[in-house]
């Protein structure tokens, strides 16, 4: 049944619709592949029984004549999305045993669309990380390995488990979240397609918060079409999220016309970095050439405040996180480590429950919001944020979309940057500006590095114009013809 795990959502959708395939068959093949891939540690909670039950329910719905847009499609859910009655950890020990009595709006939308849940995927703790090394449940391994190199590689982060499950062919697609690049960077590292929609497109209700003004859910898939299908099902206006946008939901799949003639594509000069590998630059130039050949007009643009994006991000995100994570106090749910009095109980619980990276960011966030530092850090970062947003607004007066690399390197070995937070933070340098400005972005696999590892190109678009984003992404995908797959070295021989 291994060929079933190679199907895209759109292929499976057609087979299911024709009755040539059941959700039970499709789900079984993924459950089996998931069981063979435990070595990758992509799941915190694999849920094979739930999956098969949901698959059967889906098959009966279809037999009864009703089928949603994702009817019978087995998906992996990032463990940041609260799932009713199912362990939800956010990759943290502090949510020990937490089974929410509610379902996040995004996952609920997926179940309404007929999808099947394979399990909850591993991730950096509270989505803080770019390599999946901060998870309490251990790191996720990238299905990809360098040519002739047996070293385990990081899958990127924070949605590393989701990206690995999709790249390793044991989930057809996965939900993910992106606060500074947590969808697009792991997608780039695993040869998958990952999109972060416009802030407000997907509800944040029921998604464990990292940095509220930056967090946004999106899908990781194997191709652009699947990505459009998934986002269409995940997105909705949600009155329960005050920052949810009450805007019409377009048919994203219909935007994949393959026709970008006359579109103006911006190439920002500030995205050239000192010390960036030559192959990233080469890939970018290749992408520019593809779009030009497809009839787009390439325009050099400037996003002058780009260099301030990362520092601003690493003030705003920890500031919000320090406040968002205050609720993990051992009083009402999750881990509690007793102490002599209330304060000691807080200290014991939070010291035990949070890992080093989370503690680091809570400390940074607390510091930048403190009296005497607020103006110099938080307020200044907010000003920079507005300037970055203005850079994009001005750029989009002349261009329809922007092309950049997704990440400054290919996937790297474990431990490479774990002791150097600044080097680790630099992973997000191309993705962070879109979060600060609230704009949509997508990473599409576009080539291989010298070691045979996937590299991605990022397409950014104006707010609520995911259609242009997908259209351009589709053209890049077609031109790149990225067919490489990781060797399935993790599979236990039968």
């Amino acid at each position, binding site marked *: 049944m291994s060929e079933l795990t190679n199907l895209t959502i759109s292929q499976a959708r057609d087979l299911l619709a024709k009755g040539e395939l059941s959700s039970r068959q499709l789900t079984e093949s993924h459950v089996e592949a998931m069981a063979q891939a435990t070595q990758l540690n992509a799941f915190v909670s694999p849920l094979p029984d739930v999956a098969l039950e949901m698959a059967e329910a889906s098959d009966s719905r279809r037999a009864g004549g009703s089928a949603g847009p994702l009817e019978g499609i087995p998906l992996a859910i990032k463990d940041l999305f*609260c799932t009713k009655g199912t362990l939800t950890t956010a990759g943290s020990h502090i949510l020990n045993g937490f089974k929410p009595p509610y379902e996040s709006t995004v996952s609920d939308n997926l179940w309404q669309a007929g999808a099947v849940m394979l399990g909850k995927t591993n991730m950096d703790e509270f989505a803080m990380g770019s390599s999946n090394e901060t998870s309490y449940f251990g790191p996720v391994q990238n299905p990809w390995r360098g040519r002739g190199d047996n070293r385990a590689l990081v899958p990127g982060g924070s949605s590393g488990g989701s990206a690995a499950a999709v790249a390793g062919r044991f989930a057809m697609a996965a939900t993910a979240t992106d606060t500074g690049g947590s969808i697009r960077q792991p997608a780039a590292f695993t040869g998958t397609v990952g999109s972060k929609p416009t802030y407000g497109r997907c509800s944040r209700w029921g998604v*464990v*918060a990292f940095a509220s003004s930056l967090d946004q859910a999106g899908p990781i898939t194997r191709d652009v079409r699947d990505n459009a299908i998934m986002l269409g099902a995940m997105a909705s206006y949600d*009155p*329960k*999220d*005050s*920052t949810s946008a009450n805007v019409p939901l377009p048919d994203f799949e219909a935007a994949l016309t393959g026709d970008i003639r006359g579109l103006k594509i911006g190439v920002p000069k500030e995205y050239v970095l000192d010390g960036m590998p030559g192959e990233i630059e080469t890939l970018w130039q290749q992408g520019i050439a593809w779009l030009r050949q497809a009839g787009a007009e390439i325009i050099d643009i400037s996003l002058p405040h780009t260099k301030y994006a990362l520092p601003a991000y690493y003030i705003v995100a920890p*500031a919000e996180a320090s406040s968002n994570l205050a609720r993990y106090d051992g009083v009402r*749910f999750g881990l509690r480590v007793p102490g002599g009095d209330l304060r000691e109980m807080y200290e014991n619980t939070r010291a035990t429950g949070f890992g080093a990276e989370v503690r680091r960011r809570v400390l940074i966030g607390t510091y930048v919001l403190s009296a005497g530092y607020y103006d110099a850090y938080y307020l200044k970062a907010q000003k920079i944020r507005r300037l970055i947003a203005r850079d994009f607004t001005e750029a989009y007066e002349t261009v329809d979309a922007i092309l950049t690399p997704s990440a400054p390197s290919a996937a790297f070995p474990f431990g490479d940057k774990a002791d150097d937070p600044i080097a680790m933070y630099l992973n997000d340098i191309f993705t962070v500006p879109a979060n600060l400005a609230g704009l949509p972005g997508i990473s599409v696999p576009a080539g291989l590095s010298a070691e045979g590892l996937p590299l991605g190109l990022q397409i950014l678009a104006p707010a609520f114009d995911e259609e242009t984003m997908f259209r351009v992404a589709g053209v890049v995908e077609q031109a790149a013809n990225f067919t490489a797959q990781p060797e399935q070295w993790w599979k236990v021989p039968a």
Partner: protein
Amino acid sequence: MSNLVEGATGPWEVVVGLEIHAQVTAQSKLFSGAATEFGAEPNSQVSLVDAGMPGMLPVINERAVEQSVRSGLGLNAKINNYSVFDRKNYFYADLPQGYQISQYLQPIVGEGIVSVDLEDGGSTDIGIERLHLEQDAGKLIHDQHPRKSHVDLNRSGLALMEIVSKPDIRSAAEAGAYVRKVRAILRYLGTCDGNMEQGSMRADVNISVRRPGEDLGTRAEVKNVNSIRFMQQAIHFETTRQIDILEAGGSIIQETRKFDAQTGTTRPMRDKEEANDYRYFPDPDLLPLEFSDDFVENIRLTLPELPDAKKRRYMDDLGLSDHDAAVLVSDRDIALFYEAVADGRDAKIAANWVQGELFAQLARAEREVADSPITAAQLGGLIDLISDNTISGKIAKDVLEIMFETGRDAAVIVVDKGLKQVTDTGAIEAEVDSVIAANPDKVAEFQGGKDKILGWFVGQIMQATKGKANPQLVNQLLRDKLKP
């Protein structure tokens, strides 16, 4: 009138500023749909948002916004069409989110003015600095277990208006008058029930002293005072404490203090009760609160007549005295009761009966006008019986007492007890004749110029008729018949 306090070394001036926390009257909490009823089972009115569950998000309750705007208009204050919710971060077991959503730099209501009547008959204006919306915290219960505390989150997330005065208050009496006035305004508006016993209104009291004419002194903040009497005690205590320290050459520490109702004193809060750096920042889960001028104007159109305007009308149109008008408008329930009594009747007589006899009865029974056993219509009925000479004013007082005890109508009581005034001239004339016949010596005294003796005759006749004889008629007949 001087509010100065005489110390050992000369006069001091007390400066008070109040932060009143008023619970917004609304069906649901500020950012969740949970109910707000007082006295419910612990933790029975808690939504996932109020409990600070992971991934839960606040959604503003529009009713609470309306109520704040309404309150702002009632306090003659500037309404800010653009305001921002901030997070006030601190850890405590009654604060599930680890932060309180409040408004810091940009509140929904700005500066206003409240005019306060003083006991000496004068009045003074107290400035309002701002009114902002914020969430209440839960409640810790310490008496359920020897070592552990229980948490009740029913109050968690309730909408509060924090009404901050300017430091314009100069005495405990003024502070009391100010709180009563603000409470009256909010009750008129229906935006807060003002019930201090149930915690729907409480105040933080900032107190400092200075030499007259000097700059403001260092203040102490007494937290969470839940009655006007306690607030006044706290002000008196702090005034003495601070003057004593200053006169002994010491200086006041700016600190947060707790009021002890047992002893009427204040003491510094322990460090742990006092968070220092709240790390305010705009809540990224909420958009700035924006509304149009039309929204405000539509609310303005629905405002009731407020105490100041009502008092002016009672004085100008109904001819009531300053004192009577002030008493009658001091509470919305009283004013509504009075207006129902006065409707179609003499306004002054109605005022006398409401704030004279009825209030005396209520005071004796320790009841509020809202639960008076005599309705406005019933009191009106009693007044009507006086006006049409069915009973005398004196009898009416007795009837009122019976009404208060039994809740029965005046007319029924008058018939039952045979209290109807005797206006039959013949019957009264007979009594007059017999009293005159039986007391020739008194008649002679009267005719000899001792006018005062007439009262004695009236008394005899009223006694004989058990008070039912019409007094005017008795007077008239006596004068006619005693003429020499």
